[in-house]
């Protein structure tokens, strides 16, 4: 794969953990990371129908004189040639436009250094907005570096879940790691989910790459989350429902990310995933 992951580098111990995670992700799926060392505490991501301003906290601007050397050292340790990103365009002199022409973006759970937000249970509003508008999957890394030995896809049968499954298959193909499917059977029976896969002509690929397809009853959501291997990369769709449903019931993704410690690869509603 010749895919690129954009990583906004934070020159702190927490930032190192996140970057190690990006490096591991890239090595595993044969992509390569592109590091952006911010010089301003904010940047703009222009998507097709929205401009998202990412306000970084001051920890992202820590010790700028050592940031590049630290990133380079981690690149070398991982055996990946260093690639750095420099914004070419600026909306204002202190507001660089960061390209959205990437295949993945690594995001900490919150774009903040406050310890209350670094821990589990909080996904920052900026991260939420990025996921909602991004045309690429967003890697939400675990709080500390954690390698993974398998892929777990949460498949609920929706349009977004199909994209997540496609992405899971793509990563399984690139990494050679086992892929497991987890489905919470809601109104329809197990056959409904198999039919969804069949209708999309994905059955041969699922048969080939999926090791196990686990089905759980509607009430067994917590059990399902507990049974997902702690050392697997979770791939799931997010914000696939309408705004009203999400306001009333909340987003499943938000519950999952606040419960598990795994690395998450989130497919937002505007993501386009192909197997090529």
């Amino acid at each position, binding site marked *: 794969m010749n895919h690129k992951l954009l990583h906004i580098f934070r020159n702190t111990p927490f930032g190192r953990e996140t970057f190690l995670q990006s490096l591991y992700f890239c090595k595993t799926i044969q992509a390569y990371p592109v590091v952006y060392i911010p010089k301003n505490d904010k940047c703009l991501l222009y998507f097709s129908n929205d*401009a998202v301003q990412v306000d970084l906290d001051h920890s992202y601007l820590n010790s700028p004189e050592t940031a590049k050397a630290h990133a380079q050292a981690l690149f070398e340790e991982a055996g990946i040639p260093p690639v750095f990103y420099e914004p070419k365009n600026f909306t204002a002199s202190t507001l660089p436009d960061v390209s959205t022409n990437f295949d993945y973006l690594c995001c900490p759970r919150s774009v903040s250094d406050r310890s209350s937000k670094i821990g589990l249970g909080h996904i920052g509003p900026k991260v939420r907005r990025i996921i909602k508008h991004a045309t690429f999957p967003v890697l939400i890394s675990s709080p500390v570096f954690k390698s993974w030995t398998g892929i777990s896809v949460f498949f609920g049968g929706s349009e977004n879940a199909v994209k997540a499954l496609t992405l899971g298959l793509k990563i399984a193909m690139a990494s050679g790691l086992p892929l497991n499917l987890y489905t919470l059977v809601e109104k329809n029976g197990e056959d409904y989910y198999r039919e969804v896969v069949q209708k999309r002509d994905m059955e041969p690929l699922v048969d080939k790459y999926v090791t196990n397809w686990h089905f759980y009853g509607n009430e067994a959501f917590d059990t399902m989350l507990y049974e997902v291997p702690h050392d697997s990369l979770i791939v799931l769709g997010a914000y696939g429902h309408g705004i009203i449903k999400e306001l009333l019931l909340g987003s499943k993704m938000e519950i999952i990310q606040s419960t598990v410690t795994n690395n998450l690869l989130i497919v937002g509603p505007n993501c386009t995933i192909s197997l090529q």
Partner: protein
Amino acid sequence: MQTLKKIYRAIYYRFFRLDDRLLLIVAGSLAGICSGLAAVALRLSLESVIEWLHPFRHYWWAFVLPAAGALLSSLYLEKISKEGAGHGVPEVIYAVSRYGGLIRLRSSYSRLISSFLTISSGGSAGPEAPVVMSGSAIGSNIAKLLVLNDRQRITLVGCGTAGAIASIFNAPIAGLVFSIEVLLGEWKFVNIIPIAIAAVAGAQISQAIIPEQVLFNHQPFNTMAADILPCLCLAVLTAFTSVFFTKSLRKIGGFAKKSRLPLWGRAIIGGCLVGAIGIHMPLVLGEGYHFIQTMISGSFSMGLFLTFVAIFAKIFATAMTLGWGGSGGIFAPCLLIGSLTGVAFHKTLFFLLPSAGIAREGAYALLGMTGLISGVMQAPLTGIFLIVEITGGYETILPLILVSSISATMSHYIEPASFYLKDLIEKGQFMRPGTDARILSDLSLNEIIDTHYTKVSENMVFRDFIEIIKLSHHNFFPVIEDKTGAYQGIIHIRTIRKYVLEPGMYDMVFLNQIMDTEVVTASLEDDLGDVLDMMDLNNMDSIPVVENDRFVGMIQKSRILDLYRRELIMQTHIQ
């Protein structure tokens, strides 16, 4: 829920989106109304705070008031809304020319608040550019809500701008003209109608909320044939003043950027200096509309020398306010500096030729204003219509046209880029629709790259390669390393003819011996314009794209031409 969704979609697509023009007119009116409301809110709040602060202006410590305002404004922008200082118009033009008018929602209120803090405390700036920013952000976000395309979004940005200008000046034609002449840069039927309606909506909102609003009272002026020559001279003078004003703003702002002071520190210094000047010369404070009125009505009491001093003082105060951390626009300062220039010119003429039968001082104040607006913005129509509408001076329209045209031409001759566009042009970020740079920037490299090339191994013998050529219709073959897949070079059919004609060498030649490793390559990060320059420089029709040592594909000039033509038709097509 599904049924509700279906009903909503049916209503939305069958009625509201039945006709795109109708949609733009309705959405444009909404943008005009919202931006008009924003402009009125700023005007009313400015008036009330300026009135409240008026009694305190006579105290010795009043010089700290602009500093306090600029400090709060800079802190608000930097810490709370996280935006840069300045007036924001270049940001809007940038968004229109580069990102189809995408503007953040926060811009719809942030500049209003920051400019309110700056101007109400006495900072030398105007509220017009912030309302432009606000209006355009409102238009952009309405377009986002309705999921409109780039072209429609740009039109709504224009609608928001027109509504804001129309509302703040109670001048709908000026709103329409400014929006099209300065912001969008394209006079198209599809834009004009919704923008005109938005301008009317903005002006109507303003009249409905502030019915007695008249920015400047109308004064009847009689301009005669004897005024033509002085008008020409005034046009030249305003052109030079415009260039001096623009250069001062940039120069003084540049000093501030070079200093190591934090933004709030700069804002305090700039504000204190403006306040100190304001104690001795109150006309530099705030927007200065009251002084413009006295000049138009002919009751301006300053002598010739002091009027000249006032011009420089206002220019310096505006540069210190906007360049050193304050927030606001240059419209109002332009009007004041222009009217001062006109009055100073009239006084000089009267001093040299007391019996010259020329129009009154007030008429020259109007001419000076239009000359400066046209010179600074290099937008002659905006200058003419704005002054005519806000002063009701229709009888001076002919000299206004003369001064405006000559001032805009002269200043363009001296300084080819207007104040709003200078930075964008210098950074190569100014791209009007239908221009070469804009079309190239709108073409995506992913669309252009042909990835269907057969990669060949560097250790492949020529005989095997011949078999691959037989099955391929391409002329180029990227050579890659076996182990890593890294790009090594390229083979062009033209360069291997001599080997093809000697079958005896088929098993003796390896591809790494005949590949061309010197071929210039492009990267996915390169701009298309740069890639084309690279191809021209090296006389290439095709260029390989290599990213992270991997061959991605080829870019061909013929493919670029096809897509360029398609994009040009799309951008210049009159709907």
